[in-house]
């Protein structure tokens, strides 16, 4: 999608996109910001290892039409197979369009579920909170976002049921949905959310997601982003969160599918006592590229961040981890840890991992570590000496490496499904049911 093509598309489609005049102005600013910046190139330090050429040279429709009834029922089939029995009925999007027909059940007390159109003025405000010149892809999302959802939790509300957001790419090729999610937690509230990305086909498409989170004092949000796109799908996203006093954010990133995946996560621990726990597992097999770019700003004293990422890189797979922790001036008593551990299953795989620290305060505790390794020969020999064949032993150790992190997914049915998907990549999985 060249910049000129996007300009033309924007001019032609703007009048059909929802929103007030304020939002329309925000869209125009965003498009102008994108045009000025263009796609990020590998000349930029933050994009050194990730080439957006498949997006820049591809042909996609940034405002996909509504899916056919057929596509919707096929998507529903995929959703049913997730067996999400626990929680509010899943909110399903196909090619970016909400497809929950009929009347939705009443949300739990204290939770408002708004469509992007309903929440639009808020969205315009939120749109302004992203530094568009630094985030050209998020600017594109602001310009073109047609659908999305806004979750608002009232002060003090404890929402027990998880909210599942499911995004399915249909078999219609060359679509580029731009979903927009806003999550707003009032003081002392709690919420759990999952975002699933599923692909129905093997054709190419591009999902460009923006998730914005705003957390009031002492609120707690758990968000699992589970990406299982088809093998040819491109996925870019920005998750931006701002946390008030003693707010707590737990983020889990699981990337199993997709051809080119770039996750930008930006968390601002804006007020004293805020805490963020980020964990992730990605698998980059043959021809897959997965890039996790995390930035955590410790803007206030006594803030805590934890980052734990594990990557499994197969033959000709590529992984990138960049974790940046910035401790701002006068933000004392900071505790920040970062780890990035990677398993290279082939000498033709590639991983670039770079933890970064920028510290402008003096009373801080920061640590980071990165490892890149192969499977442990002692562990392999130990299992083989018990009679387990080499391929199974390798698969078992690879699974164990991922599973240590997957254990943190605090929703058993989801944890099990993800673990099964990881197992499906490895040899000998049929005998491994008891591992789960």
């Amino acid at each position, binding site marked *: 999608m060249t910049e000129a093509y996007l300009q033309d598309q924007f001019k032609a489609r703007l009048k059909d996109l929802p929103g007030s005049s304020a939002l329309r102005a925000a869209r125009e600013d965003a498009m102008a910001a994108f045009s000025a910046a263009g796609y990020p190139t590998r000349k930029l330090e933050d994009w050194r290892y990730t080439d957006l050429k498949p997006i820049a040279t591809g042909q996609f429709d940034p405002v996909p039409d509504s899916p056919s009834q057929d596509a919707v029922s096929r998507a529903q089939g995929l959703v049913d197979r997730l067996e999400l029995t626990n929680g509010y009925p899943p909110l399903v999007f196909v090619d970016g369009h909400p497809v929950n027909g009929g009347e939705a059940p009443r949300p739990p007390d204290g939770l408002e579920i708004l469509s992007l159109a309903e929440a639009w003025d808020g969205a315009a405000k939120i749109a302004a909170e992203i530094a568009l010149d630094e985030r050209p892809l998020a600017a594109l999302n602001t310009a073109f976002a047609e659908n999305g959802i806004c979750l608002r939790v009232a002060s003090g509300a404890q929402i027990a049921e998880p909210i599942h957001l499911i995004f399915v790419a249909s078999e219609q090729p060359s679509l580029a949905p731009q979903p927009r999610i806003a999550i707003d937690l009032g003081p002392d509230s709690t919420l759990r959310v999952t975002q699933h990305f599923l692909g129905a086909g093997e054709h190419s498409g591009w999902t460009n997601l923006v998730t914005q989170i705003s957390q009031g004092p002492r609120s707690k949000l758990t968000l699992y982003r589970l990406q299982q796109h088809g093998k040819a799908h491109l996925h870019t996203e920005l998750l931006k969160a701002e946390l008030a006093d003693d707010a707590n954010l737990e983020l889990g990133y699981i990337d199993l599918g997709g051809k080119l995946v770039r996750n930008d996560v930006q968390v601002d621990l804006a007020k004293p006592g805020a805490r963020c726990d980020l964990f992730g597992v990605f698998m980059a097999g043959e021809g897959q590229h997965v890039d996790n770019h995390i930035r955590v700003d410790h803007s206030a004293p006594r803030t805590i961040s934890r980052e734990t990422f594990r990557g499994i890189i197969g033959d000709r797979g590529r992984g990138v981890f960049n974790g940046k922790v910035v401790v701002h001036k006068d933000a004392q008593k900071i505790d920040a840890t970062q780890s990035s551990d990677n398993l290279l299953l082939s000498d033709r795989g590639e991983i670039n991992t770079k933890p970064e620290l920028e510290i402008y305060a003096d009373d801080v505790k920061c640590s980071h570590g990165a490892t890149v390794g192969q499977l*442990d020969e*002692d*562990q392999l*020999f*130990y*299992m*083989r*000496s*018990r*009679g*387990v*064949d*080499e391929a*199974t*032993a390798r698969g*078992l*150790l690879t*699974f*164990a*490496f991922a*599973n*240590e992190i997957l254990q943190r997914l605090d929703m058993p049915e989801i944890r099990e499904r993800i673990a099964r998907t990881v197992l499906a990549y490895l040899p000998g999985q049929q*005998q491994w049911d*008891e*591992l789960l």
Partner: protein
Amino acid sequence: MLQIEDLHVQIDGHAILNGVNLNVAAGEVHAIMGPNGSGKSTLAQVIAGRDDYEIVSGSMTFHGQDLIVMAPEERARAGLFLGFQYPTEIPGVNNTYLLKAALNAQRAARGESEVDAFEFMKIIKEQSELMQIPKEFLTRGVNEGFSGGEKKRNEILQMLVLQPTLAVLDETDSGLDVDALKVVAAGMNSLRSPDRAMILVTHYERLLELVVPDFVHVLSEGRIAKSGDSSLARELDERGYNWVRAEENRA
């Protein structure tokens, strides 16, 4: 059962075993003793199939099969078991799972069906009680967070579940207190039978008072310098190893 003839082994061009000869028949318990660096652990690892070592010459057969060409898992399936001197920790793979996977792999190699779940739990319960391994250890990662003594007891538990025809136990007794040594020795003795054999690699005579060997060999400078019955172990305990070397040099 196991026949080793004129075995020469090196690692990184450095000779470690210089012509080892050893015959182990069914029903026998052999002890291999010797000073540090004499090649005891190398011998145990080479029998089990560790590929860090280069076998320069010689032969090893097990039940008449050429061991040298067999992968470690094939050796295990043929009935060989190595008790590790330093058992590896494997976080994320639970003990029970490994035991079951190992047992089923060995059963499949013998053309037997998978172990019945109920039967398996019964075996585990029985043997872990004998080894005094608490139930909650079984669902933890393999050896994860185990003390030195717990790891050694876990090795013997694995041996008892797998019921090998030949167990090579590499310094299972080192680092154990008297009580743990008794537990481990009871496990070893429970496996003794006319159709099984055991090789105990050890530094100390105290294990051999509890598991009395039929033969004692002294490994020195990469070859067996002296063999005898269990009284040799007591003699070594009293006199050390130097006299064996001196005797061999005179010969």
